[in-house]
C-alpha cells in the first residue's frame, strides 16, 4: 500500500502548486494576459513566467494553436487533439488582426480551462 501514500503526497504537492497558480490567475488574469500580449521578447515578470510554465506543462489531451485565416493578416484559434478520432477544429468566429491579440486569446482560454478544471473535483 506504500504507493498509495506516495500518490497522496504527490497529489497534495500538485494541489498546493495549483492553488497558488489558481489564486494568482483569479486575481490577475487580465493583467497577466495583457503583459503576455505586449511583450514580444519574452522578458516576463516572475508571476507570468510561473503561470506560463504551469499552464503549458499541464497534461492535457489537446492544445490551442493559432491558425492564420489570412496569412500574416488575420488569425483565429484552433484546437488540435491527440485523439485519433477527433479532427482539428477552429474554435469560434472570433478573428484577430494581430498575432499579439490572437496569442493573448489563447492564453486566456488556457487560464479559463485551468480555473474551470480547478473548480471541479480535485
Amino acid at each position, binding site marked *: 500500500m506504500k504507493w498509495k501514500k506516495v500518490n497522496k503526497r504527490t497529489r497534495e504537492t500538485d494541489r498546493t502548486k495549483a492553488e497558488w497558480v489558481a489564486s494568482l490567475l483569479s486575481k490577475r488574469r487580465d493583467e497577466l494576459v495583457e503583459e503576455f500580449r505586449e511583450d514580444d521578447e519574452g*522578458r516576463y515578470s516572475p508571476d507570468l513566467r510561473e503561470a506560463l510554465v504551469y499552464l503549458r506543462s499541464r497534461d492535457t489531451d489537446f492544445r490551442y494553436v493559432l491558425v492564420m485565416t489570412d496569412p500574416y493578416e488575420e488569425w483565429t484559434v484552433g484546437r488540435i487533439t491527440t485523439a485519433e478520432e477527433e479532427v*482539428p477544429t477552429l474554435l469560434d468566429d472570433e478573428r484577430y488582426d494581430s498575432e499579439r491579440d490572437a496569442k493573448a486569446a*489563447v492564453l486566456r482560454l488556457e487560464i479559463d480551462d485551468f480555473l474551470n478544471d480547478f473548480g471541479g473535483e480535485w
Partner: protein
Amino acid sequence: MRDPETGRLDESGFGEKEILGYTDEWSVRPGDELDFRVSCKGPDVYRAALVELICADRIPDGPKYREREVGSPIDGEHEGRVQSVHPGSYVVVPDADGVLAFEKSFTLQCLFSPTTPARKRETLLSRWDDDAGAGYCLSLDADGRPQFRVGDGTEVTAVSVEQSLSERWYAATVAYDGERGRIELRVATMETGKHPGREQWSARETTTAVAPAGRGGTPFYVGAVARADADGTYGGETFNGKIERPRVFDTWLSADDCPAPTESLDADSPSPVAEWDFAANVSDDGFDDPDRVVDVGPHGLDAETVNQPARSVPGHDWTGDVHDFVRAPDQYGAIHFHETDLVDAGWESDFTLTVPPKLDSGVYAVRLRTDDDEYYVPFAVRPERGDESDVALLLPTNTYLAYGNQRMFLRGGSSPQRTHIVDDGYGFLCNHREFGASFYDTHVDGHGVMFSSRKRPLVNISPKAVYGGGPPSHLSHLAADLYLVDWLKSMGFEYDTITDEDLHVDGEEALEPYNLVVTGNHAEYYSKRQLDLLKEYVRSGGRMICPGGNNFYWAIAYHPDCPQIIETRRGETGTEPWKPEPGEVYHQFGGDKSGLWRRRGEPPQQLTGVGFCAQWEINASHYRRTPESYDEAVAFLFDGVSSETLGDDGLLGRGAAGQEIDRYDPSLGSPEDAYVLASSENHSQYALRATEEYRSSRPRVDGAIDSDVHADLVYYRTETDGAVLTTGSMSWVGALPCDDYDNAASKLMANAVEWFGRDGDLPSATE
C-alpha cells in the same frame, strides 16, 4: 485547404486537402525525366505549373513571397483522380505456387509481443482474403484475444482464447485438422528476462466443417490480411508489436507432438514447410537486404517487408548483454510492426516532367492547384555536368525528411512562451495520420518513428508551410532555406543547388567542382559517409559556410538500395523527442550505431567549429564582436561592417541568434586556432542548455544566468587553405534580408561568400 490566389483559409475545409503529390527525385539535372504522382479529391481536373522558388516570406513588410513561373510542357490542366494510401507494415510471402494454400491440415506457430492489444483487430499470420472471408487467419480480435478463423467464402469458423494480453511475449500455436474438422488454438505467456514467471497456457478447441479456401493468388502475410481496392491487393488489419519465428507445418500437430514455438527444430522435429528467420541475412554491414526475409524451410519462400517495419530489435530471448545486433543476430530475431509505418504510398505517375534544357540550377517545384487548394512538390535542379559554378548551396534534404509530416508538439516538447502557429497543412496531418510521420513522432504504440521516406506526400516541406520557426515569419526547413536562396540571388552571387542526397549518391564528385559549399539553416542529420565527405572536402582545401544552427548533430543511415528512405534510432543521450528502446541503437541499414555524432566521437565542433548547446530561444538576440574579430587576418570578413553588433533584427525571432544555437568548445574538437569572431548575448530564461551539455540534473541552465548559453560566430582555416565560417544559429538566415539586405550579418556573409568562392588563397595577416 487554402485559396490558391489569396492564401485565405477555407475554414470549412480545415484539416482537409484537395490535392497532394510527390515525385521520384529531389535532385535532377536538365534533360532528366521526373514522374509526378498526384491525388486529387473532388475536382475533375487540376492545374500544374513548373515554378522556381525564390522566397517564402509573406509578412507584410518582409522581403515578399516570390516564385517564378518557368513554363514547361507539363503546365496546364490534368485529369484528377484519387489515389489511396495504405499505411501499416507487414511481411508478404507471394507463394505463387500455393505451397501455403492448405486444403486439409496444417499448423501455424509464432512468438509475439503486442503493443496495442484490445484496440482493434490485428493480424499475426494469415492467408486470408478479407473481402471474401476465405482462407485462414491467426490474429488478435478487437478485444485483444488470440483468435483463429477459417473461412470458405460462405462460412467462417472462429475460435478465441480467453486470455487478457499485455505488452509481453507470448507463444501461439494453432493446429487445423481438415480430415476430422478440429481446430486447437494454444497460447502461452512466456518467461523472459523482462517478465519472469512460469509459462501459463491457455487453449481452446472447437470443431468445424469449414475448410480454408479463397481466391488463387492470395499471399501469405506476417502481420496482415489480404485486402484489395482498385489499385490492387494490400495488407490490412496490420499488427502493432513484435513477431518472431513464424513457421508453418503442413500437418496437424497435437500438443504432444508439436515443438514449442520457442524451440529450434532439429532432425527429430516435424519438418516445417516454411520457417522465416528474421535475422538470417545479417552480416557485418547489417542486413544484406533490409527488405528481404529469409525462409529457412525447404521451399525457399523468401518474403518481402512492406512499409519498413523495424528490424534489428531485440527478440524474446535478448539477454541485454549485447546491444549490437550484428554481434548476436540470434537474439535479434524479431520484427516490430506498426500500423502507422509508411515508406511508399505507391501512387501511379500522373505526368512526367522533362527538366528543360539550360534551366538554371536552383530550387524548383511543380505547383498543383485546384480552384480551392494548392500543393507544392519541391525539388532541386543541379547544373549540367561541366557547367558548375564555384559555389554550391547544399540543401539539407536529410533534415527535410527527418521533419517530414511532423506533428510533434501535440505531445509537448516546447517552450512555455511559444504559442504555436500552424497552417492548413498541419491541420491536414493531424487529421490524416495515414500519410506517415516524422522522426519527431511516435507510432500509435509509443515506439519512436525510425524511418522517413519521400515516396509519399510531405505536406510541411513546402514554400507555403508556416510552423515551428521564430517570429514574425515562423518559417522552417525548406521555407526558411529560401531566405538563403533569396539572399544569394539578391546579392548577385552565382551558385548551384545540390542536396544531401547528391552527396550520398555521388560521393566526392558532388563536391569536387566547388570552391565553396553553403549548408542550410538546419543541417542536423548526416550519415557517416556524408560527414566523412564534408570533412575530407574541407581538409583538402574546400571551404564551407554553415549559416544555420544545430548542424551535424544526429547520425542517420540510408536504405542501401533506396536512398529515398533514411533511418535514425536516436540515442541514449541527446535532445530528442523519444528514446530508443533498450538494445535498439544500431541502424538496420548498414549496422552502424545511431545517436549523436558527439557520442560517436565526431562532434560537430570538429567540422564546423561549434556545436549545439541550447534551444527554445524563440525571441532571438544579436551577436557582439569579440576583440579577436579585429585581427588583421580576419579583416576581409568585416569589410564594410562598422557596427559592434550583428543581427540586431531578423525574421526568425527578430534577431540573428536564436531558436537552436551552437557554441565554440575546444574540449569537443573546435579548432584551437579558430577565430571566435562574435558571440551572442542577452539570452532569455527560455533558452535552455541541451541535455547532453550537462551530466546530471542541475540549475542554471538557461540563457538568463548561464553564460554558456550563447551562439559563437567562428572562422577557421586549414593547412590546405580550406576554411569554414559558422554562425551557430538557426535564426541567422532570417537576419540576412533585413534593411534591404544591407546589414552587418549580410555584409559579413557576403564577404565570406565572395572570398571563399574565389580561386586562390584567402587573405591572411601578413598580406
